[in-house]
C-alpha cells in the first residue's frame, strides 16, 4: 500500500516539476501570447514578433557625448523612403531625425519662414501662430517619398508646415477659408499625409467629415473618406421618425454624425488606410480608401473582421474594448494596427486575416503604458510610448518569418508552394487556424481531396470543405459508377427472372408475414 502511495507521490511530483519547467520554457515574452480561433475565443499562440530593445531620448546619439535629452511624449513617427526615422517629440516641440539604429541625424526645432508660401493673406501681428519660428505641440509628421519634403502637423499653431530637413519652410497650410469648413470648428491638425499627386490630407480632431484635403498649392479641396454613421437602434428610429417630421422639426433634431477617423497611413501603391479610435462603434474602424474616398476593403470581402480584440463575453464592464489609434502598412501590405487600450499591436495580412498579436500593458520590455505611434520597416516594428518616452523595437521571430512567408505565397495564389511553410507553422503552433486552411488549399489545388477535407474540418472552414467534398465525391462517382450500374442491372434482371418464374409456377412465392 505504502509503495503505491510513494509511487503516486513521485508521479505527482514529476508532473508538477514538468509543468513548471514547461511554463518557464515558454515564458520568454513578458506576456502570454494569444490568438483567436474560429469561435472568436482566445487561444495560446506563438509570438510573431519579439521585443528586442527599447530606446529613450538619452540613448539617441549617446556616443558623441552631446545627448539630446529625453523625449517628451513622442506622439508620431515616420520612416522615410531613405530609411530615416522622424520622431515627433511633442513635449519638447521638436522633430528628432535618426537612422534606423537610432544614431542622431538632426533635430529640427527652429524654422525659417522667409520663403514660405501660403502666408500672403495673413498678418504677423494678429496671426502670430502662423508665423511662429518654433513648433507648438506638434503631433504628426509625414515625409514625401518622391520629393523628400517633410510635412509637420503643428497642432497648437493651427498649421501644417512643408519643410526640408534644415528647417527651411516652403509652404504653410492653414485653416480653410471656404464656407464648407464651418466657422465653429477649430483647426488643430493632428496627423498629416500626402499622396502621390502631392495632395495634402490633414486629420483634424474636431472634423468628423473625414480628412481635410488640400492640393499641392495649399488650396482647400474638401473632405476625404468620411466614416459612415453606425446603424444603431437610435439612428434607425430617428431616420424612421424623420419621414413624418416637417422640415422645421427635422432641422431642430441633431443630426447623427459619424466618428471621425484618428490616423492614417499610405501604402506604396498610394492607397490611404485609416483607423478610427472608438470604443463604442464598430463601423469603419479600419478602411482602405480608393481615390474617391470609398472603402475598398469591403469589396475585397473584408467585411466581417473584428479589428482589435474580440469584444469580451464575460465581465464586459471590467475590460475595455480595443481603441485603434495608429495604422502602419508593412512591406507586403500587412496592416499593423496599434491598440491604445491594451498597448497591443495587431498585425493583419492585406486581406484582413489576423496574423499576430504582440505586446500588452505593463512595465517590462515589450509592454506599454500609453502607446502613441507605430511604424515598420522590413522585419522590424517600432512602437512609441508617450508615457515611457521611449521607442520599442520588435523583431520578427523565426515563427513570424515562416508565417509571413507562407501568407505572402498564399495571398499571391501560390497554394502549392505555400504547402511546406504552412506545415512548418502547424509544427510550431497547432492553434494557428490559417495554417490548416493553407495546407488544405494546397492539397485541394493538388487534387488530394480527402486530405484537404480533413484540414478544412480542423480549421472549421465550411465553404472550402464543401469544395473539397465536391471533388472527393466526383472522384468516388467516377471510380464506382460503372460497377454500381452493373450491380443494379443484375439485381433488376434477377428480380425480373424471379417474377417470371413465379408466374410460370416453377417456384412458389414467399408468403409475406401478417398480411392484411
Amino acid at each position, binding site marked *: 500500500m505504502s509503495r503505491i502511495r510513494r509511487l503516486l507521490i513521485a508521479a505527482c511530483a514529476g508532473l508538477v516539476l514538468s509543468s513548471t519547467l514547461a511554463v518557464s520554457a515558454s515564458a520568454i515574452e513578458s506576456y502570454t501570447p494569444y490568438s483567436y480561433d474560429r469561435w472568436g475565443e482566445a487561444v495560446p499562440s506563438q509570438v510573431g514578433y519579439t521585443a528586442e530593445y527599447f530606446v529613450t531620448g538619452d540613448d539617441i546619439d549617446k556616443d558623441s557625448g552631446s545627448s539630446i535629452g529625453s523625449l517628451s511624449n513622442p506622439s508620431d513617427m515616420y520612416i522615410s523612403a531613405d530609411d530615416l526615422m522622424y520622431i515627433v517629440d511633442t513635449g519638447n516641440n521638436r522633430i528628432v531625425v535618426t537612422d534606423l539604429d537610432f544614431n542622431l541625424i538632426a533635430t529640427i526645432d527652429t524654422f525659417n519662414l522667409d520663403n514660405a508660401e501660403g502666408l500672403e493673406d495673413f498678418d504677423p501681428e494678429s496671426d502670430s501662430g502662423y508665423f511662429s519660428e518654433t513648433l507648438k505641440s506638434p503631433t504628426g509628421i509625414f515625409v514625401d517619398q518622391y520629393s523628400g519634403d517633410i510635412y509637420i502637423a503643428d497642432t497648437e499653431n493651427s498649421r501644417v508646415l512643408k519643410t526640408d530637413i534644415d528647417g527651411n519652410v516652403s509652404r504653410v497650410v492653414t485653416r480653410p477659408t471656404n464656407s464648407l469648413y464651418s466657422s465653429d470648428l477649430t483647426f488643430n491638425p493632428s496627423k498629416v499625409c500626402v499622396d502621390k499627386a502631392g495632395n495634402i490630407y490633414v486629420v483634424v480632431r474636431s472634423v468628423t467629415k473625414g480628412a481635410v484635403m488640400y492640393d499641392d498649392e495649399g488650396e482647400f479641396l474638401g473632405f476625404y473618406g468620411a466614416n459612415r454613421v453606425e446603424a444603431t437602434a437610435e439612428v434607425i428610429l430617428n431616420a424612421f421618425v424623420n419621414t413624418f417630421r416637417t422640415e422645421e422639426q427635422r432641422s431642430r433634431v441633431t443630426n447623427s454624425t459619424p466618428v471621425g477617423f484618428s490616423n492614417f497611413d499610405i501604402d506604396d501603391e498610394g492607397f490611404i488606410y485609416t483607423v478610427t479610435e472608438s470604443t463604442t462603434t464598430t463601423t469603419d474602424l479600419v478602411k482602405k480608401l480608393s481615390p474617391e474616398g470609398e472603402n475598398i476593403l469591403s469589396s475585397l470581402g473584408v467585411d466581417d473582421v473584428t479589428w482589435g480584440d474580440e469584444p469580451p463575453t464575460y465581465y464586459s464592464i471590467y475590460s475595455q474594448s480595443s481603441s485603434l489609434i495608429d495604422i502602419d502598412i508593412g512591406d507586403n501590405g500587412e496592416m499593423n494596427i496599434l491598440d491604445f487600450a491594451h498597448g497591443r499591436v495587431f498585425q493583419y495580412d492585406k486581406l484582413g486575416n489576423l496574423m499576430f498579436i504582440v505586446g500588452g500593458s505593463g512595465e517590462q520590455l515589450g509592454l506599454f503604458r500609453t502607446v502613441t505611434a507605430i511604424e515598420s520597416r522590413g522585419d522590424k516594428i517600432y512602437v512609441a510610448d508617450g508615457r515611457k518616452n521611449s521607442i520599442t523595437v520588435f523583431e520578427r521571430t523565426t515563427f513570424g518569418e515562416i508565417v509571413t512567408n507562407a501568407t505572402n505565397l498564399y495571398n499571391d495564389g501560390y497554394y502549392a508552394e505555400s504547402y511546406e511553410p504552412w506545415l512548418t507553422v502547424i509544427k510550431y503552433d497547432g492553434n494557428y487556424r490559417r495554417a490548416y486552411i493553407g495546407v488544405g488549399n494546397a492539397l485541394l489545388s493538388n487534387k488530394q481531396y480527402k486530405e484537404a477535407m480533413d484540414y478544412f474540418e480542423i480549421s472549421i472552414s465550411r465553404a472550402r470543405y464543401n469544395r473539397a467534398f465536391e471533388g472527393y*465525391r466526383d472522384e468516388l462517382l467516377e471510380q464506382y459508377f460503372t460497377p454500381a450500374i452493373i450491380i443494379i442491372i443484375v439485381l433488376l434482371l434477377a428480380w425480373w427472372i424471379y417474377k417470371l418464374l413465379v408466374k410460370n409456377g416453377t417456384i412458389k412465392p414467399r408468403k409475406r408475414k*401478417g398480411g*392484411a
Partner: protein
Amino acid sequence: MLDLTQGQFVKHVVMHPFEGFEDLRWKKAGSMKIAVAIVFLLFFQQLAYSRMYGFQYYSDYDKLFNIIPYIFKSWGLFIMYVVANWAMCTLFDGEGTMKNIFINTAYSLIPYICGYLIGTVLSHFLIQDEYIFIQAFEIIGLAWTVVLFISGMKAVHQFSFGKTLLLILLTLVAMLAMLFLLILLLTLFQQILIFIFTIYTELSYRLRV
C-alpha cells in the same frame, strides 16, 4: 375490416392523415410502448441533427457538449405539451385521456423525425448547392407532421377543426405559463439555497471564532 396489429396501425395512421386517428381511436389500437419509442427516436433525431450533420452545412460549437438541452428539446417539450393539452382539454370537454394524447402526439411526430433523419443522412452525400433536396425532405416531413398533428388532436378530443386549432393555441399558451412557473420555481429554490448557504457560512465563522 382493419384487422391490423398495433405495429401495422402505426403505418396506417401515418399513411392516412384524415381517417387514421379515427380508426386508431375506434379500434383502441394505440400502443404506449411504440409511442415512448418514438419520443426516444425524436431525442436521437435532435442529437443527430446538431452533432452528426454533414460538415459542409452545419457544425455545432464543439468545445462543449451538454445533453440536457437535447433532453429538454425532445422529452421535456413533449411531456409539457401532453400535460398542457390534457389540462386544457378538460376545460373544453375534450374526450382524450392523457394516454391517448401521448400516443396521438407521438404518432404524428413520425414524418418529422423521418424527414429530418433522411435529411441528416443525405447531408453527408450532397454539396451545398444541392441543399434544396435536403430541404424538400425536411419541409415535407414537417408539413406532414402538422397535418397529422391537427388530425390527431381532432380525433382524440372529437373536436371540430376550428376548436382543435383553438385548443392547440391555448395549449401553447399553457406551455408558456408552465415554463414561466418552472423558471420561477428554480429561481426561488436557488434563493433558498443561497439563504441556507449564507446561514451555514455565518455559523461556521461564528463557531471558528
